[in-house]
């Protein structure tokens, strides 16, 4: 979980993800860990956004909503927050040192 005051996320250094986007399925391969992940549209767009530029949860939610044509609401923000924790656990993203 993000500590207070430390909320901006980024993909880990030297992360050269390989992507396949087929319909609304995002398959991403992380060469650093050797893991392959199948993500739905929201999750996939969220990771792609972070790969483009670091963001905190609120900013990320806004960007994802734009790309996926979904409304920004508390539910989406909660999903994004959970997802960020999972991605961190998997070693795909980390908090930017404050």
């Amino acid at each position, binding site marked *: 979980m993000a500590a207070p005051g430390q909320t901006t996320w980024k993909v880990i250094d030297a992360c050269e993800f390989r992507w396949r986007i087929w319909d609304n399925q995002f398959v991403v391969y992380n*060469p*650093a*860990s*050797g893991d392959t992940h199948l993500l739905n549209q929201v999750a996939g767009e969220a990771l792609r956004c972070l790969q483009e530029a670091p963001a905190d949860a609120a900013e990320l939610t806004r960007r994802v909503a734009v790309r996926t044509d979904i409304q920004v609401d508390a539910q989406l923000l909660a999903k994004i927050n959970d997802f960020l924790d999972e991605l961190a656990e998997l*070693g795909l993203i980390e908090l930017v040192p404050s």
Partner: protein
Amino acid sequence: MHDRELLYAALRDPSTMVDLELAQWDLLIRQARYARLLGRLAVLLEERDLLECLPQKVRDHLTAARVVARKNETTMRWEVDRVGKMLAPTGVPVILLKGGAYVMAELPPARGRLYSDLDILVPKSQLSLVEQTLLEQGWEPQKLHPYDQRYYRQWMHELPPLIHRQRRTSLDVHHTILPETGRLHPDPEKLFQAARPLAGEWPKVLAPTDMILHSAAHLFQDGELAGGLRDLTDLDDLLRHFGPQEGFWDQLVPRARELDLARPLFYALRYSQRCLESPVPDSVVDALRPTRPSWPVRFLMDALVTRAMRPGHPDKTCWGSVLSTWLLYVRSHWLRMPPLLLASHLFRKALRHWYEEEDD
């Protein structure tokens, strides 16, 4: 060229491999694979742009070995990354040992290497904290027979190996580089003082002299010589890599004495020179003369080591090599443990082999 010479010749001068007949390749590939050096051969040929000259069948085997070595490297780098994320916040100084150090410091022994475990050295006073941190974050002790658990903790120099719950990778946490019950006692504090950081403060690796001494100690005092030729090639690589560095040779023998590792260094340099023609200055050999064992021991060791290192023919059991390897196994355990302890350890291990199913 005699069968036995194939692998040595390939290691000493990789360009000679392009002249090999298919039947010789057949043998070399099997010997190298068993010695865990096939990936190394593949890299040596790749570095010299010689792969295209080789027959397709041979290239296939080298390609396969490269695949495995590359994956090993990725896995090791990721493990170091993950373990670092867990341990760096604790502030405990950590030194990467052996393969982990070679790959992260991009040293020659990393080329085409197969890794088994990640080995780290931590101060004994911090061992509990490290163990606790790791256990809380996805590592668990390998399931060991209670006797082996005791063996590791009480008598050896490491925690029982830890396995990561999801990744199933293996981590060995050491607090010295040789067992406390052994005869030689290199002071880990000195190793920490001389250790060099890589990028940032985490992790550290041993100073060049210490890395070589650790490799020598591992090969000639610690391990069962199962690593054999592969570990000797590591040593040879390190000697060639660090040799040209300013002051290296001058520091090596004094440091060996300081760490109580002069005898292993003697053996290491002797056999590295004999088997792999490592360039060692005469002055260094002379400086080690006072530490060398009596001639009967030297004579026996020469016979044992060169035979055990010799890559055998896969189809013919060379009883000399088998016996040599067994004798060296006993020797290395003798050096680790006082004789009474040794007898009971071997006896119990033998009993378990007969009466219990071993896990895969």
